[in-house]
């Protein structure tokens, strides 16, 4: 089962490598990884998605909690939550496809953020599934390059992940 784990991490050199190292060391997989500072400059927030059964996820969260740099963590998929992935896609557009691509971008509520003679760069925000379906809709032959942020997530309502 796919899980989203959000981690508050000391913003210290080497902290990220401990988290990533833990996954390779113990044979867990990382599907996506996203990390950036928070409103508190001493903390980073790291969100990763991983796939595993309940036992594996339990071990992952326990092992993460053991890392001294990890201040707190939450498995967002245990409750109601929001998840977003940001994607920038470079698409080749001949004159005759431009309209069709523009329509598709609108349907997916994306934005064309850069235009060249034969190039569109599209920005799209959503769940991983939505981004995948956009690429499928455009067709692989037209997609030149994809950059995705990885999932960032937050739980709904009053639940707060803080130090």
């Amino acid at each position, binding site marked *: 089962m796919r899980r989203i784990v959000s981690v508050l991490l000391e913003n210290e050199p080497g902290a990220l490598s401990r988290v990533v190292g833990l996954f390779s060391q113990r044979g867990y997989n990382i599907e996506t990884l996203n990390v950036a500072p928070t409103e508190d400059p001493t903390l980073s927030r790291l969100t990763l998605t991983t796939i595993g059964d309940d036992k594996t996820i339990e071990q992952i969260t*326990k092992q993460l909690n053991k890392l*001294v740099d*990890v*201040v707190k963590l939450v498995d967002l998929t245990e409750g109601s939550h929001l998840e977003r992935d940001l994607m920038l896609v470079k698409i080749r557009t001949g004159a005759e496809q431009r309209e069709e691509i523009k329509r598709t971008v609108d349907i997916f509520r994306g934005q064309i953020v850069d235009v060249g003679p034969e190039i569109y760069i599209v920005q799209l925000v959503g769940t991983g599934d939505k981004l995948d379906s956009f690429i499928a809709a455009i067709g692989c032959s037209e997609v030149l390059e994809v950059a995705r942020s990885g999932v960032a997530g937050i739980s709904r309502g009053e639940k707060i992940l803080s130090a």
Partner: protein
Amino acid sequence: MEKLSGSEMVVRSLEDEGVEFIFGYPGGAVLHIYDALFKSKKIPHILVRHEQAATHAADGYARATGKPGVVLVTSGPGATNAITGVATAYMDSIPMVVLSGQVATHLIGEDAFQETDMIGVSRPIVKHSFQVRHAEDIPITIKKAFHIASTGRPGPVVIDIPKDLTKPEDLFEYSYPKSVKMRSYSPASRGHLGQIKKASRLLLGAKRPVIYAGGGVILGRSSDLLKELAEYLNFPVTNTLMGLGSFPASSAQFLGMLGMHGFYEANMAMHNSDVILAIGVRFDDRVTNSVDKFCPGAQIIHIDIDPASISKTVTADVPIVGEVRTVLVEILKQLKEETDKNSCSARKGSLDDWWHQIEMWRKENGLWTDRRYPNSDQIMPQQVIECLNRVTGSDAFVTSDVGQHQMFAAQYYRFDKANRWINSGGLGTMGFGLPAAMGVQLAFPNEIVVCVTGEGSIQMNIQELSTCTQYNLPIKIVNLRNNYLGMVRQWQDMQYEGRHAMSTYEDSLPDFTKLVSSYGHVGFEIKELSDLEDIMEEAFSIKDKLVFLDIFVDPAEHVYPMHVAPNGAMNDMWLSKSKRT
């Protein structure tokens, strides 16, 4: 406030932390620190002959005393040589602080001379690590390192110190912090009361209980409570390899070690139990055999300070996260309340059938009840350990290396006290025994310290014979010499139709007695069984010298019992070369 240089702060912080010994080896990146150490003269420094030995010696010291061992090595090869010892300590949860030198800050990342990314190399085998960025952070970093290494589930901590931060000319205000608080580090202490109550009821209702106790009892200094609990409940107790000594071997309630080379009665009791009280153990694969077949009828209560150890391999029915000491105190309190309430004085009698069954197992195949090894015209390795046990009155500190000799020592030496059996259980590091014995002997100069080894293992750190000369360490080395890598040979006999691939040294072994005498030590060869006890007595009567006993044992002997692995249950064992359960 007093002003000190970075290197003086390192030394002073270690002094203020109460460090008794530093095990190390100087080199370019740590020369400022060594100079400060030389000038201060407060903490004795033990110069080893290889950095691996520094970590093992610090580890041995830590296992025997319960205090963190301290290591000081230089950058690059000094640091990488120390790695095996760090991994050894990590696997067995041993408190250790390793200070490694690093090239100067401006050189980091430039592939400078003797540069290694020690933080990166050690990352998977440390509890935590620090690279000091500013000299003024040295005292707080050292304080944090000792705090992390010695609290919660202990483990090694590395502090990497770039050379420029230790320059003698740059001075900083020094004060050593009294305590340290870290928002991201707060090990569990008290167990959950509801779970403790549940556990107590389960224990009182058990018909076929076993206490399965491991290294956590020793690390948590709780052998007194383990004994009290076991006696209160009249439960049988088995120990893991790491837990030997946490429960007295002389007690009638002791079943011996369990696991791959565990006692028949211990493995049988586990397999047939209805309640297992697991304390400070981690259901290691060398204990459980096939997890799917592990103790099918048992409900498991698991006490551990590390939540990640619970339900990692075997699911616990009643998990209790907490310090073993506080949890055992609570359990005892609960048990006494429950028994008072229900006045169940019949409690002890209700285990009669179970004890009767255990006695039957002991009688059939017990390791200590009857001679469990074949007659031979050669000395049997088991006889050597039995003799050692007699000569030292079951009261020596025994370190070991890794292999058959380690298992024989674990099976046949009868440890009555905690912190006396010192071996590399988790990592299985050959070369551990001699340097570990140095650390123990330094901590306990008047106690008998024995290193049980084999000619394979001893040669992995044999250079330390020189360190023993320098510091006058009268260790007794018992070498079970069978001219093979014995455990490798055993597996080759059992699983590779006796093809002894590269497990013998042919005629390349040194004359160990001559070798040790060239270092100023004493060596004896023992080839006849009739000489064994006399020469061993003589060796142990030499109080002021290291004595090396090179004892020629039957090379064909195997360690039994042995789990039928990898798909067997706890009760699937080879009991001899021809007999299986």
